[in-house]
């Protein structure tokens, strides 16, 4: 006796408990004992620095800024030692449902308006309204947007406006622009991405039976993770895989930088990319609490302390070099990788002042000494420089004052 509607729906697998250990330094063997494994036998190591890409749907918050400063110091400090590719393509991630859904929502609820003069705050308010509405447009409504991205590199004018504002803020903050407003499509399509995963034995494709596509690392004891919904909607992880699968094999090392709450997904990404050859390192960062609370950007958080607000508050009182160094001291060395300390503007102000003192006292050390210093701050078995160790070292009173060349090259 059985109801004809029965589908075995009791088979609800429990939630992800994806704790996997990723051996960071995988190179071993006799060769490694006489040669640094992070440095290829010929030429400089090739490093792919791929931070999580911030979707252009809201202004930059302190948590975003933290990731950007960590990335920037990792990039600029590693460049003297390695060929570093900074990959953060908005084109690759515009296809994720968070962005597509926002665009569809704007056009349905706001309509044809001129976004080019809007402030980031106004666009951010619209994003908060979209998230608060809790609507999830059917995928067929989002499909024209996906096709426009794929065919024409189209960007919705609300996001284009935000990216334009970000580019100006990056410039003032001394951040390397990875091509915020450039069209940088991933090299492969979704079908090719799925095919490559299948060749790695890491794809469970249920589309023929009306189901989704999963990233399958169950052989390592990690639960299935959906990457494409049954209706064809790719998620953030699918976008990351599509972007990084073709790039990873061309590098000796991949450095992934991500929020702590994305750790299960990045452990998976780590595992997939490591299977393609390169060493993979992850830099995991906690968000920046505001008044003791860690919130997602969907709830705001940029109004008081976002990039624009910080530049307004501190930009006139501190010279550009002190501003850039001081922000990096604060967001990297003071806040650290965790999420224990709330954002404190008065403490930031003190570090901006301290930055000016460090700049004033910086001796000329000569470039080769600086290069050796950077080399000493590489992680174990890594070709890239650890931004936390390097920056925290600047505040160590027992060490010699940081050299002018180092501050110029990496921090200002």
């Amino acid at each position: 006796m059985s109801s004809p509607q029965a589908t075995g729906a009791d088979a609800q697998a429990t939630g992800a408990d994806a704790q996997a250990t990723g051996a960071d330094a995988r190179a071993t063997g006799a060769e490694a004992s006489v040669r640094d494994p992070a440095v290829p036998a010929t030429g400089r190591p090739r490093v792919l620095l791929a931070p999580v890409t911030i979707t252009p749907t809201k202004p930059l918050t302190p948590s975003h800024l933290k990731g950007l400063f960590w990335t920037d110091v990792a990039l600029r400090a590693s460049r003297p030692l390695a060929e570093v590719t900074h990959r953060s393509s908005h084109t690759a991630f515009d296809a994720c449902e968070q962005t597509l859904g926002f665009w569809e929502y704007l056009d349905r609820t706001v309509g044809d308006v001129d976004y080019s003069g809007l402030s980031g705050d106004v666009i951010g308010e619209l994003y908060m309204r979209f998230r608060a509405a809790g609507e999830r447009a059917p995928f067929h409504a989002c499909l024209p947007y996906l096709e426009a991205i794929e065919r024409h590199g189209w960007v919705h004018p609300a996001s284009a406006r935000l990216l334009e504002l970000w580019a100006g803020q990056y410039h003032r903050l001394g951040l390397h622009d990875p091509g915020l407003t450039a069209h940088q499509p991933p090299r492969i399509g979704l079908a090719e991405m799925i095919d490559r995963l299948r060749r790695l034995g890491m794809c469970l494709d249920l589309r023929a039976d009306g189901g989704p596509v999963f990233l399958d690392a169950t052989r390592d004891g990690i639960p299935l993770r959906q990457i494409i919904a049954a209706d064809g909607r790719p998620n953030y992880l699918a976008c990351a895989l599509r972007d990084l699968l073709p790039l990873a094999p061309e590098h000796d090392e991949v450095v992934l930088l991500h929020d702590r709450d994305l750790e299960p997904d990045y452990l998976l990404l780590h595992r997939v990319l490591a299977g393609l050859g390169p060493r993979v390192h992850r830099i995991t960062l906690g968000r920046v609490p505001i008044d003791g609370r860690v919130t997602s950007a969907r709830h705001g958080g940029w109004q008081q302390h976002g990039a624009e607000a910080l530049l307004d508050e501190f930009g006139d009182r501190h010279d550009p070099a002190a501003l850039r160094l001081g922000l990096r001291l604060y967001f990297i060395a003071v806040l650290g990788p965790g999420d224990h300390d709330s954002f404190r503007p008065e403490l930031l102000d003190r570090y901006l002042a301290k930055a000016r003192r460090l700049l004033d006292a910086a001796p000329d050390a000569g470039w080769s000494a600086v290069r050796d210093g950077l080399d000493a701050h590489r992680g174990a078995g890594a070709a890239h420089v650890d931004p936390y160790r390097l920056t925290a070292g600047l505040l160590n009173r027992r060490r010699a004052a940081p050299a002018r060349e180092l501050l110029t090259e990496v921090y200002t």
Partner: protein
Amino acid sequence: MTLTQRLLHDHAARRIIRARPELAQVRDLSTVDGLTAVQQDAGDEDTAVVAVVRRFDLVSWVRGTVAFAAGLNRRRAQEWRRAFTRTVFLAGNPANLTTRFDFAHVAETGAMAWTAPASAAAHRPLRRLLRTFPGTRDLTLGGDVVIDLPGEPPAEPMRRVLHLAGSGLTVAGALVHLGHLLVEAVLDGAISPGDRLTVRQLPRLVGVPGPFDALRVGVDPADPDRLHALMSVSREAGDD
């Protein structure tokens, strides 16, 4: 002989009496409500099989299910029977799981695998890794599908017809109902290894001639007081 409400009722009641005679005594099996209530009562028995499915393929599924059921030992089969051969269908790739989990049977294609019957607690590690198999698409066969069941065929293998009521049958539904039907038919000796099975899809099984070696009976979605046949196994005409 053809399908009647009486015949469907008798089949449903016989299934209950065979699996849980003690439950059959405390319910009024002459009503649809009574038959359905036994299903709830059977929730005290948490023995189940986990079937892992990478891709649904009818021939592979039928052959694998029969081979799996034929290979079960009597004690385990009896425990499973008490839970009405409860089966959990999970999406997964058996090839990625065989180093961590023991399967009682893996299909020849590698696309499906079955665990031995075990408690819910024993299945927890496997269920934690996988997700429910969705199977939302409609099952459409196109034409008759002839399947030689695995195993050593007897001197004169039996030719049987497995009728499916195709109206609204999804892949997920086919997994559930076909699974129960085939497994219990093997355990009852109603179909045997080496038999030749022709799977035929009809809108409804009304008018299909009996006698029936096996029947899968459900509550008719059009009327909760009525039963209908979802699947049946009978001998092919002329194969006596």
